[in-house]
C-alpha cells in the first residue's frame, strides 16, 4: 500500500446519484429529469460501466459507507439497487459495519420494496419530510402530505429499520414561531434517530428565485433565520438530538458516518451524472494534494459516456486542502481537530490560526483550545463569515 499521511486510505465512501424525479420542487436547484428518461435499465448499464471504468483506482479499498441520493432514489425499482450493490460487492470488500443510506420521498415506499432494499443491506433511510404544514408543503411544491411521512416511518419500523433520518426545511415564508414549533413537535413525535434541518435557501435559477425576484414571495430576513436556527438547535438538543453539524442533529452514535467522511475530506467515489469523486493523491503527484472530478451532469450524455475524461476537475493544493479542512471543521460541533491538521500539514499553518481568527474570538464567536477550534452557539450562524479569515 502506498505511503500516505492521510488518515484513511484503506476504506472508501461511495455516493450513488439517482437523477430522476416525479416532479420538480420549487426550491430545488439540482439537475433532475423525469422518471424513465432514459429508462432505468439504460441508466443501470451506464452506472455499471462507470463502476468498471473506475474501480481500478480504488482497488484494495473496503467500502465503509454508501449513500444513495438524488433526485429521488425511491422512484427506482429495488432490482436496480440489487444490480449495483451486487456488482460493488463483487469488486470490493464490505466493511463489517457498513452504513448504507437511501433517500426516500415519503409518498413512494411500499412495504415490499422497503423490505427488498433492507435485504440488500440498506440500513439507514432518510425521509424528505421538509415540513408538516400542508400549506408549507404546497409552497415547496412537494408531492406528498404530512400523513405520508408518518406512514413511511411506520412502514420502516415494521420492516425493522430504526436508523431513520428526517429532512426539514425551516424559515419558510409565512412560517411563524408557532408554525416552527409545530414542525419541531411533529418531527420529534416520530422519534427519528437523526434530523437534518435546512434553512430555506433561495438558489439562483429556481422557480422560487424568480418568485422572490418578482416580489411574489418574501422569505424571512437573515435575523429571523438566525433566530429559527437557534430555536431548532435548542429544541432538538433538549430532545436528545444535539447538533453535530450546522444543519444536522443526531442521537449520540447515530450521526451520518457518510457525511462525516465528506466533512473530514476523506476519499469518496461518486457514481452518476455530475457526482463528484474526491481522492487523496500520492505525495509526489502532479495532480495536487487532493483531486476531485465529476463526469457529465447531463443524464443523456452520461448514459453514453466512455468515462475517459471528466468534465470537471479540481486539483486541490495542500494549502487549499488545509483551508477546506478548517472551513468544513468549523461547521462541526466538534470543531476543527488541530492535532489532525498538524499531522497532515505540519505546525506553521496551524500555529497562525489563533491570530487569523482573533476578530471572531474577541467577538465571542469562536473558542480555541490547544487541540480544537470551534464555533460558539453565537458563531454557528456566522460560520461562513468567520471562515473567511482562513482564506488567503
Amino acid at each position, binding site marked *: 500500500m502506498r505511503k500516505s499521511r492521510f488518515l484513511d486510505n484503506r476504506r472508501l465512501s461511495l*455516493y450513488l446519484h439517482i437523477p430522476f424525479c416525479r416532479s420538480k420542487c420549487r426550491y430545488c436547484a439540482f439537475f433532475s429529469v423525469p422518471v424513465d428518461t432514459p429508462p432505468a435499465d439504460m441508466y443501470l448499464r451506464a452506472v455499471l460501466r462507470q463502476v468498471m471504468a473506475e474501480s481500478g483506482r480504488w482497488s484494495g479499498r473496503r467500502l465503509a459507507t454508501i449513500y444513495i441520493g438524488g433526485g429521488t432514489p425511491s422512484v427506482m425499482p429495488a432490482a436496480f439497487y440489487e444490480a449495483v450493490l451486487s456488482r460493488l460487492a463483487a469488486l470490493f470488500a464490505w466493511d463489517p459495519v457498513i452504513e448504507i443510506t437511501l433517500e426516500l420521498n415519503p409518498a413512494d415506499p411500499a412495504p415490499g420494496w422497503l423490505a427488498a432494499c433492507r435485504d440488500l443491506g440498506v440500513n439507514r433511510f432518510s425521509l424528505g419530510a421538509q415540513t408538516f404544514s400542508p400549506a408549507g408543503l404546497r409552497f415547496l411544491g412537494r408531492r406528498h402530505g404530512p400523513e405520508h411521512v408518518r406512514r413511511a416511518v411506520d412502514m420502516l419500523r415494521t420492516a425493522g429499520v430504526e436508523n431513520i433520518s428526517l429532512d426539514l426545511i425551516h424559515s419558510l415564508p409565512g412560517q411563524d414561531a408557532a408554525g416552527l414549533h409545530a414542525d419541531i413537535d411533529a418531527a420529534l413525535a416520530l422519534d427519528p434517530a437523526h434530523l437534518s434541518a*435546512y*434553512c430555506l*435557501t433561495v438558489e439562483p435559477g429556481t422557480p422560487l428565485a424568480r418568485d422572490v425576484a418578482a416580489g411574489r414571495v418574501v422569505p424571512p430576513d*437573515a*435575523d429571523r*433565520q*438566525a*433566530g429559527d*436556527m437557534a430555536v431548532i438547535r435548542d429544541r432538538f438538543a433538549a430532545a436528545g438530538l444535539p447538533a453535530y453539524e*450546522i*444543519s444536522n442533529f443526531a442521537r449520540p452514535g447515530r450521526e451520518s458516518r457518510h*457525511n462525516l467522511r*465528506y*466533512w473530514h*475530506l476523506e476519499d*469518496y467515489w*461518486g457514481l452518476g451524472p*455530475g*457526482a*463528484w469523486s*474526491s481522492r487523496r493523491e500520492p505525495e509526489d503527484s502532479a495532480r495536487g494534494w487532493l483531486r*476531485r472530478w*465529476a463526469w457529465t451532469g447531463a443524464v443523456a450524455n452520461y448514459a453514453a459516456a466512455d468515462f475517459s475524461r471528466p468534465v470537471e476537475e*479540481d486539483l*486541490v493544493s495542500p494549502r*487549499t486542502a488545509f*483551508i*477546506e479542512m478548517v*472551513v*468544513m471543521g468549523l*461547521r462541526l460541533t466538534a470543531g476543527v481537530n488541530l492535532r489532525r491538521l498538524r499531522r497532515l500539514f505540519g505546525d506553521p499553518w496551524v500555529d497562525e490560526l489563533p491570530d487569523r481568527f482573533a*476578530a*471572531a474570538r*474577541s*467577538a465571542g*464567536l469562536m473558542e480555541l483550545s490547544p487541540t480544537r477550534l470551534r464555533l460558539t452557539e453565537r458563531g*454557528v*450562524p*456566522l*460560520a*461562513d*463569515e*468567520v*471562515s*473567511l479569515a482562513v*482564506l*488567503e
Partner: protein
Amino acid sequence: MSTRREQIRNFSIIAHIDHGKSTLADRLLELTGALSSRDMKEQVLDSMDLERERGITIKAQAVRIVFRAADGGDYQLNLIDTPGHVDFAYEVSRSLAATEGAVLVVDAAQGIEAQTLANVYHAIDQDLEIIPVLNKIDLPVAEPERVKRQIADIIGLPADDCLPVSAKTGLGVPELLQAVVDRISPPRGDREAPLKAMIFDSWYDSYQGVVALVRVFEGTIRTGMQVRMMAVGKEYEVQRLGIKTPLTVDVDELAAGEVGFVIAGVKDVADCRVGDTITGVKRPAAVPCPGFKEVKPMVFSGLYPVDSVDYEPLRDALSKLSLNDASFQYLPETSVALGFGFRCGFLGLLHMEIVQERLEREYDLDLITTAPTVVYRVTLKDGTLLEIDNPSKLPPVQAVESIAEPVVRATIHVPKEYIGNIMKLCDERRGIQRNMTYLDETRVMLEYELPLNEIVLDFYDQLKSITRGYASFDYEPAGHRVDRLVKLDILVNGDLVDALSLIVHESKSFDRGQEMAVKMKELIPRQMFEVAIQAAVGTRIIARTTVKALRKNVTAKCYGGDITRKRKLLEKQKAGKKRMKRIGKVDLPQDAFLAMLHRES
C-alpha cells in the same frame, strides 16, 4: 515670410461655453483658406478629447491666417484661442495680454453670461479693442435687439458696433474679418530692440520637450539664439521656431508683433511658466513684460489608488501630467483609511475633475478622491502660522487660536424670478451679498462674497438645479476671512477615519455630522460585531449611529459535491473583503468612501 508690423492683427475670441467660439474659429480658418472644409476636423482648435467632449478649451492655441482685406492688402491675423473656464483665469489673462483686441461672441438667443463678462472685464482692463458679435442669428429664437441692448448696457459698447453672424452658416464672417483689420490696432514694438517675448502657454511634448507659445513684444527671436527665462532665470538655446496655420510651419525668426511657438530644449514646464518673459542672453531687456505671477492651487484633494498595486502607476501618471501642467501639484501622503496616495493641488474644481478624468481614462487607474478642500490659514496659540490643505492635519483645537478660510467674490447672472432661490442658497452657504444689478428688465447680476469651501463641493450643481440651468456663475479670489471653523471627524468603533475628516463652519457641524453618520451607517455592511459610527468635533461626539452585528452568514447544505463550490464562493466573498479598507477591525467598502465623498443634495 516676414510681414510688416502694420499688417499684423493679434486677437482672441471671448465666448461662453456653447456660444459658438470653436465653430466660429473653424469658419475663420475655412474662409481664409487655411483649411478646406473637406479636410477639416470638427473644431480644429480643441485638440484634446476631453476638450471636445466638454466643449471647453483647456490649453491655448495660436493660429496664423492670412486675410486679403478690402484695401487689397494681405493681413496676418493671429487668432489666439483662450482657455474657457474660471479655473484658468490667469492663463486667460496672459492670452489676452498677447493680443490687441478680442472678438466677443454672444449667443443672440441667450445673451451675456457671467463667465463671458469676467473675461470681457479682463480684456477691458488691458485696454483691448472689443468687437461684439451676435452669433446664431439664424436661429428663430434669436433676439438680437435685446442682446444688443444688453451689451450696450452692461459693457458700454455701442449697440451699432455689434456684428450679426452665423458661425454655422458663415453669414457675416467676412465682415467680421474686415472689422478685425479695421478696428483692432496693429501691434507696436521695435524689431531691433532687445528681445521681450511673453509666454502665454506651454506644454510638454515627449519628442521635443517643452513647447512655448509666445507673443513677441520687442525685438526678434531667432533659431540658434541664446535666451533666458527672466522669472525662472534659466538659459537655453532656441532650437526651433514656428507657427500654426493650423499646420505646423517652421520659421527662422519671430519679430516684434508676431505670435508663434518656441522650442529651446526645456525639459520641465515649470521652467517655462505662463507669463514669463523670454529675453536674449547677449542683449537682455531691462524689465520683463508685466503681469507675471506664480499660480497657486486653490483646491486640494487626496488621490488614492483603489488597488494598492496601482500606487506606482499613479505616481508615474501624476509625474507625466505635471510635466504638462505647471499649476498642478502633487505630494505623497498616507492615510490610515486609504493607504498610500497623493495630496494634489488644483486651480479649481474643473481642473481637479479634468486631472481625475485623465488619470482614469488615459492611464486606466481606479481612484478614490477625498473631499476637495481649500487651504486654511491657521494661527496657533503660540503665534505659529500654518497653511492646512488636509483637514486631518489640523492641530488639536486647544492649540488653535484662529482659522481663516479663503473667500471668493462670486458673480451670478440669473433671470429675476430666481433671485429668491439664489439668495437662499448663498445665505445657506454663508455668503454676504455685495451687490445686485439689473442687467436688463429680465436678468439680474448678483455679487456675493462666499467662502471657497462652500462652493467647491456642489455649489454649481445646486445653482443650476434651483435655477433650472439658467444661472451662470463666475468667481475670483478675494482674500481670507477668519470664522468659527471646526474639524469634523468620523469615528468607526472609536477609530478615526482620517480620509473623511472635514473642516466645516461650527454652525453646520451638527447637521453635517448627523448626515454623515446616518449615511455611513447605510454604507457599512454588517460585520461580526456591532459597529458604532460617531461624528465628533474635537472630543465632543455630536452624532452617533450603529450598524447592528451580522447574525447570519452560513451555507445550509454542504456535502461531497458542494465542497469545491463552497470554497469558490468563500474565495469570492474573501476577494470582496480584500478590496475593502480596514479601519481598526472594521471593513469599509470602497463604495462607502466614494459615496461619502459625493455628497448629494
